[in-house]
């Protein structure tokens, strides 16, 4: 029992510290000062228009969006926006373009639900609504000087493209770069032209794999983790960035462990259902973590023991 008591004492101390940190006291009523009410509704979207639509695959299209107020989106690679079409609702969508001072940005969207299907039915010049950017993106600054290992599955390449293009725009600030990209079938490869262009310039080493053998595919087959063992990397200066479907993470993390990459040096982007983007609606909650606030990009060492995260 005394052990329990001791543990409880530490826990209570931890809770108190947390309270202090967040400056939320349980014993004082909230100050509902009038200044709170002067702010506008956080649900009001910014208006934007579709500038260009590029068909990438059967299901995915790349939308170039222009914000009507002329201001930049102001996002970091890895952040997302809440996209909506009035009448069709809202959904979180990762930004696929690198940060830009202009009012344009890109979204790569797979048609899977009501909203994304409706988006695919829109044409150039049509209006959409956006809120955000929201969440925490990739730690661009702390990646500088490191070797980068990008591992991506399916549409995981979408948010990763924002980071890769950021890295490429300042290529000399980073070390070696590898991209391992796994898709189900050859016709699902996204950003084909860009991939081959990146490859041609020789600034990033790219390997693509297809899950199962396919008559139209002459390259590597097998899941994305099969690309890892032969890859030569310097584990002392490599940071891995992993984005893919939920099922992929567990296996990639194990393979990265085999490569002796520390959990501290692995970043992931998690997908969850989101309805507000403001840390309120509860849908994206993993234990006490709101993915829309503290994520979607997480450092593995921060969430390895977070139950239900991976």
């Amino acid at each position: 029992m005394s052990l329990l008591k001791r543990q409880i004492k530490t826990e209570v101390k931890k809770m108190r510290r947390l309270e202090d940190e967040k400056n939320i006291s349980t014993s004082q009523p909230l100050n509902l000062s009038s200044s709170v009410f002067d702010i506008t509704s956080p649900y009001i979207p910014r208006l934007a228009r579709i500038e260009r639509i590029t068909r990438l695959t059967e299901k995915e299209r790349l939308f170039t969006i222009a914000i009507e107020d002329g201001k930049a989106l102001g996002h970091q690679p890895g952040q997302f926006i809440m996209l909506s079409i009035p009448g069709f609702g809202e959904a979180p969508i990762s930004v696929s373009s690198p940060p830009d001072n202009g009012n344009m940005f890109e979204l790569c969207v797979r048609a899977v639900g009501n909203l994304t299907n409706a988006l695919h039915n829109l044409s150039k010049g049509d209006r959409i609504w956006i809120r955000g950017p929201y969440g925490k993106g990739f730690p661009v600054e702390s990646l500088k000087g490191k070797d980068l290992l990008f591992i991506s599955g399916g549409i995981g390449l979408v948010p990763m493209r924002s980071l890769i293009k950021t890295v490429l725009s300042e290529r000399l600030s980073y070390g070696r770069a590898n991209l391992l990209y796994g898709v189900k079938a050859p016709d699902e490869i996204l950003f084909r032209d860009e991939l081959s262009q990146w490859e041609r310039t020789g600034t990033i080493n790219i390997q693509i794999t297809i899950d199962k053998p396919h008559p139209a595919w002459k390259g590597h087959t097998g899941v994305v983790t099969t690309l890892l063992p032969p890859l030569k990397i310097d584990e002392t200066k490599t940071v891995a960035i992993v984005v893919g479907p939920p099922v992929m993470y567990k296996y990639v993390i194990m393979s990265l462990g085999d490569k002796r990459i520390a959990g501290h040096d692995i970043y992931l982007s998690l997908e969850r259902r989101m309805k507000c983007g403001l840390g309120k609606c509860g849908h994206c909650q993993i234990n006490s973590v709101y993915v829309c606030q503290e994520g979607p990009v997480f450092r593995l060492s921060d969430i390895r023991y977070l139950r239900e995260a991976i």
Partner: protein
Amino acid sequence: MNYRFLSKKGVASFVTGLLKEFRVYGPVKKDGFPMYGEITSPDELHLLHTPTHLSPKHYLFPQRETLLRFKNGENHSIEPTVEAHDQALFGVHSCDIHAIRLMDMVFAYGTPDVNYLKRREKTVIIGIDCLPDKHCFCKSVNTMTVDSGFDLFLHDIGSGFVVEIGTRKGNDLLYKHAKTKKATAGERAKMAEFKNKKAELFITKINAEASTLPLLYSGSYFSPVWEKIGKICYGCGSCNNVCPTCYCFDVRDDVTLNLTEGGRYRVWDGCTLEDFAKVAGGHNFRKTRAERLRHRFNRKFQYQVDKFGGLFCVGCGRCIRTCLVNINIAEVTNELIEETNKDRS
């Protein structure tokens, strides 16, 4: 703190006064059971009541509320909407006042939620003493009494009420609409008497200090209890909907028949419902009822405590009453305590 004495008859004229300024909601009888409802005369109030079956949270966080209205096409427009009116919640119990304080924190932290806060600002809260029914366990989670979060609080001392004044707003309303006198030391002593008597009446209890519960839950993630209760759970969301601190919501759009005008509204959602954590691609991050129940229980005793500092279970016992398969949050907690003690001995 200022205490005034209000006679039992005085309550009626006070409520009549409030009705001139506010929409007044209070405990009434519906089909013979205590529920909150709008009143138009003080006679409708049933003040000495056990807990209402539903919490009063919908007066601050309605089941469905419009966030914005829009017009599409040439006359494109977006109007944010806040549906708030002056309202008085009369006869709120201490557990629900604690719950409202937690909701205030939730909707004010980070990006403030104007819709909630505006409504909260227009709300007067008048609390009242209560006695526990067989499901109440507020004493176990330290919400049996409340020292702030209300404008006025009525303590029943038999001969009348000692009114505890919580805010200036409450003070002004009391002086405007009621004849009161200063409460004597004797009358104030009776408040404590009531409290002591109440403390003896609890049938449902949690067998550990409230402060130990976050750690207990954190250590009980793999307990067999979750499978056990997951098996009998309907996944009907009733526990979410009756809970005064469940605030999860969905956001949806609605259009009129011209298909170009419409509104974006939010509506209550519940983490025990099947599709709560399901994404558009079809993956469900909490597929089983057991996982969803574990999430809900942990939200009350651990997860939200990490975020906001207070236990999110206020011991009102409503989820116990509403659960048709008798999943009892206090009993489950006691089972976890027992398991944990067994593991350690």
